[in-house]
């Protein structure tokens, strides 16, 4: 399309969809009445070559009416519409994500509340030993306590000593050697080697040496 074209030749090529985007923009920007007449004429020639009966359907007043009706229409701008839709989708996504975050946060709070309700009193036995023992007797079985004990010891061991400890704290505890909070005496520890890692957190409410022997 590098050849120099006259305006009417451009109109002819436009009718066939053979103008480049740039040429099309230029032609449309400079359309005058003469160009429109050329467009109507060339398109009619094409119709008449295909079928002469189409001549009967050429209707100038109708074209004027449609043109007038189109002027009343809101200008269509599809790319902006897409942008708006994308923006709205993004906003909707953000709000949904925010709602999701809120839901997740609420779920996390509930989970933590249950965890605190179930676990913290069990390990916070110094000041509340009796109440914990009483509650555990009502709601927590010996097996549950043993599992929680096992989990917390392992957790602290991993936190302090790293993921590859010299001995596995996750090894199963022999039920016969289970140390139950309500069963042990709350005496101060004297075994410094055992309290090295437990004291990072807080003083153990029971004699941890018994626990270590079970490993």
């Amino acid at each position, binding site marked *: 399309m590098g050849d120099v074209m006259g305006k009417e030749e451009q109109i002819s090529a436009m009718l066939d969809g053979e103008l480049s985007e740039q040429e099309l923009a230029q032609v449309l920007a400079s359309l005058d009445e003469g160009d429109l007449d050329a467009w109507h004429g060339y398109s009619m020639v094409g119709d008449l070559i295909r079928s002469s009966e189409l*001549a009967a359907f050429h209707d100038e007043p109708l074209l004027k*009416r449609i043109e007038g009706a189109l002027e009343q229409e809101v200008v269509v701008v599809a790319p902006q519409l897409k942008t708006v839709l994308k923006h709205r989708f993004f906003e909707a996504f953000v709000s949904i994500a925010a709602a999701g975050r809120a839901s997740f946060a609420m779920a996390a709070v509930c989970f933590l509340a249950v965890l605190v309700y179930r676990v913290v009193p069990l390990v916070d036995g110094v000041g509340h030993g009796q109440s914990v023992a009483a509650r555990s007797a009502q709601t927590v079985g010996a097996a549950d306590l043993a599992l929680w004990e096992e989990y917390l010891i392992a957790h602290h061991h991993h936190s302090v000593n790293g993921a590859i400890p010299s001995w596995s704290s996750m090894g199963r505890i022999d039920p016969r050697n289970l140390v139950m909070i309500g069963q042990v005496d709350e005496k101060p520890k004297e075994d410094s080697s055992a309290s090295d890692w437990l004291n990072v957190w807080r003083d153990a409410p029971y004699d941890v040496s018994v626990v270590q022997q079970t490993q």
Partner: protein
Amino acid sequence: MPPTKNDKDEDFALVQRVQTGDKKAFNLLVSKYHRRVGRLLARMLKNHEDIEEVVQESFIKAYRAIATFRGESAFYTWIYRIAINSAKNLLVQQVRRPSTPNELIDGDDETFEYQQALSTIDTPESLFQTKQIGAAVNEAIEALPEELRAAILMREVEGLSYDEIAQSMGCPVGTVRSRIFRAREAVAAHIKPLLDDSKVGKRW
């Protein structure tokens, strides 16, 4: 799916212009297709006013929905579908609509048939004009130099692109473009007097 140019959709670039807010581009499409849409509707609707109404309604509907047109089909097939659906809707409405008292009073057989005959497209006069115009177009095509005739027929009848015509004729695309343009000018000049005398083609 991003918009893609259908191989046979020569109007895709114009549609894209409309989608960017160019109403002038849509008016060109109306001018190009209103005759074909009118003929299509004349096979479904008998009343001339109904045909005009549905032609207008179809193009307005198309304009309103142009943002959703993605070029997966040619524009003319899209506007045809809109026109057919609009005509069907009108026919359904007409079946449901009860006759008005005036229609019943004026609706004796003789008067009714006469009004119907006046309102249809295929009047004897229009049929005669159509025949005359058809003959003039054929004369004009016959009078064209061979390369111009071949180029315009390959374009308008076969629907080939400029590239395809250039390959077929063994010439550059620019030459094809020029030949088609000159052929159109020659045919238009030949039939213009006929169209000026008739009720059609007043714009040129």
